[in-house]
């Protein structure tokens, strides 16, 4: 089985540890032959969400061309994965290639739970963790049940952490409210964006969180920016970093 690792552009540039942790986890769980095709860059979402489809097209075409030959494509980002899976229509000319790629592109946690079908990993993470439900993973990829729908509760991300020794979860007043990042929303609607972010952080702090984690680094980049500016004691970790740390995998050189 050949797995193409997709490390989204901003993770590549700013959060290489998240990429390394993802790679280490895939190796640890014997995902097969894992490759990082160097031709990849970006899924195209920044431009597409701004409405600029023509500017998003080359990135989307590049993504499909780069990953078409793999059996699976895995990325540590629900947001980029939903872009590929749910918003590529009209962006990629070769529709056959597109639907192939869409069917085999997975977010890291769902790849572990649904494709590799691993047992909840055994490891150790003796901390109180605030799990932020990144919206695109939750409501577009349905990695978990959200508070709006009346459906049986489940959560793929949380299920990967639940068996870790010593872990506790912060209880939140609003379990799945948006963090306020929203791509260029964070810039063009800066006031509301930062208020939303601070409200999320406050909720996690009230729940006693020591570590804030999520499946999407973009939410965490925004929240971490606020946390560091206000010198709050919360440690921010992508769920891949948290899992790698709990399993004792090395993520530095």
């Amino acid at each position, binding site marked *: 089985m050949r797995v193409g690792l997709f490390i989204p552009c901003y993770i590549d540039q700013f959060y290489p540890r998240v990429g390394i942790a993802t790679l280490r986890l895939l190796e640890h769980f014997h995902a097969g032959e894992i490759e990082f095709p160097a031709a990849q860059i970006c899924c195209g979402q920044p431009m597409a969400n701004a409405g600029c489809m023509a500017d998003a097209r080359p990135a989307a075409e590049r993504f499909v061309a780069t990953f078409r030959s793999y059996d699976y494509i895995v990325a540590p980002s629900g947001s980029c994965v939903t872009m590929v899976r749910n918003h590529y229509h009209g962006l990629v000319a070769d529709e056959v290639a597109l639907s192939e790629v869409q069917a085999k592109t997975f977010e890291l946690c769902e790849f572990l739970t649904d494709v590799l079908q691993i047992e909840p990993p055994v490891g150790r993470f003796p901390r109180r963790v605030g799990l932020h439900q990144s919206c695109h993973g939750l409501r577009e990829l349905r990695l978990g049940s959200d508070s709006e729908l009346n459906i049986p509760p489940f959560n793929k991300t949380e299920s990967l952490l639940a068996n870790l020794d010593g872990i506790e979860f912060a209880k939140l007043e609003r379990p799945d409210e948006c963090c306020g990042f929203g791509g260029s929303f964070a810039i063009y*609607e800066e006031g509301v964006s930062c208020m939303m972010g601070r409200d999320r952080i406050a909720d996690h702090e009230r729940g006693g969180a020591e570590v804030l984690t999520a499946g999407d680094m973009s939410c965490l980049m925004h929240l971490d920016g606020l946390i560091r500016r206000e010198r709050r004691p919360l440690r921010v970790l992508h769920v891949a970093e948290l899992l790698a740390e709990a399993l004792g995998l090395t993520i530095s050189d």
Partner: protein
Amino acid sequence: MKTQDHPAAADAFVADDAHAHWHDQALWFIRAKRDKCAHGLPEWEELRELAAQIKQHTIAHLGDYLEQFERNATRLGAVVHWARDAAEHNAIILALLQEHCVRRMVKSKSMLTEECGLNPFLEQQGIEVTDTDLGEWIVQLRHEHPSHIVLPAIHIKKEDVGELFHRELGTEKGATDPAYLTEAARHRLREKFLAAEAGLTGVNFGIAETGGFVVCTNEGNSDLGTSLPPIHIASMGIEKLVPRLDDMGVFLRLLARSATGQPITAYSTHYHGPRPGCELHIVLVDNGRTKLLASEEFRNSLRCIRCGACLNTCPVYRRSGGHSYGVSVAGPIGSIVNPSRDPEKHRSLPFACTLCGSCADVCPVKIDLPNQLLSWRKRIAELGLIEPSKRRLMRLAGRILSTPRLYAFAGKAGRTLLRFAPRWAVYNRFNPWGRQREMPLPPKESFREWHKRQSQQEKQ
């Protein structure tokens, strides 16, 4: 036409942090009540699906159902009028009122008349219009517009209502007790009801097979307003139809639960023709709705039953207030229907959204709001209505993010700048990210640089 800029208005709202948080909490409270209702009905998701299908079917056959509705309503003795736009709607109503020498009219809540600007139009003609929904009356006394389609005065605190009533109704200064203030309003409104020569209501549901319609309120004001005066005018958007009376069994169960977290509104009044000796006029209004109907992308927004659930759940609406949208229907659904009337004026609305998707999951008729907001962004870009600076930025980003060498260079340059530039060079007025937030801590190596180095080391 002046462009309504949501970010600027939202920033002003957010600047009063205590008030913005109070507003957010007040609406979250209602969202939480809605959740309780939704989770209390095992068949909730089935009801939503059923409602979506009924509405979709109605929209697909809207012309037929409208004609059926007109036939049946006429048979019951109502007079049906057709209005292409707001101006025709207002003119029809003015003519009716003038014909009957009406000087005073009471109105129960109707967002459609807000949309058409009926109040100021009639007031200019010397007709007194009184909004009798308490929240809407408060807003009217303040010379404002509703900030929410179901809770028109949700942006106003009881202290401010006390102040307003002291000024307008002579209540005790500093009074904030809701029961006391409501009682005062009740007395003044009772005078208005008794003096009114016509009553106007909105319509929640028009029923094609009977020609009747249903109005839902919690205050009974529409019942009083249509029981006393001899003329009842009902303003109805053409999308308000359902095919059968039985469909009420679906929609009445969804409406109040979604709107305010109540099992049902206090009053769900069915009107079938005029009262004996009285007149009933129904004004069917298009005002841009057929434009939505004609558009493949936005058609299903006509399913909307105006419950307001998408406003209550929207994290942006809760923190920016209804007035920041500059329209009669604010929030996620407003950001879809308003640009169809005037994309240039409302071009910032589809971007007043993080695409979190919560609106779609609370919507009782399953409108795919986030996708439609995305489609609007696309349309606005196609119409050339995106700010030139943003347009240039996206063109540049698109180039960089699809050209390996440019990307590698820009990434490295950006990280180096962040590592070595003095703070003022990064954190200044040209960097909105950095106003309240730190930039990411730039690593020495990108993932791909690390990966390349690892692969080379392995080979050696």
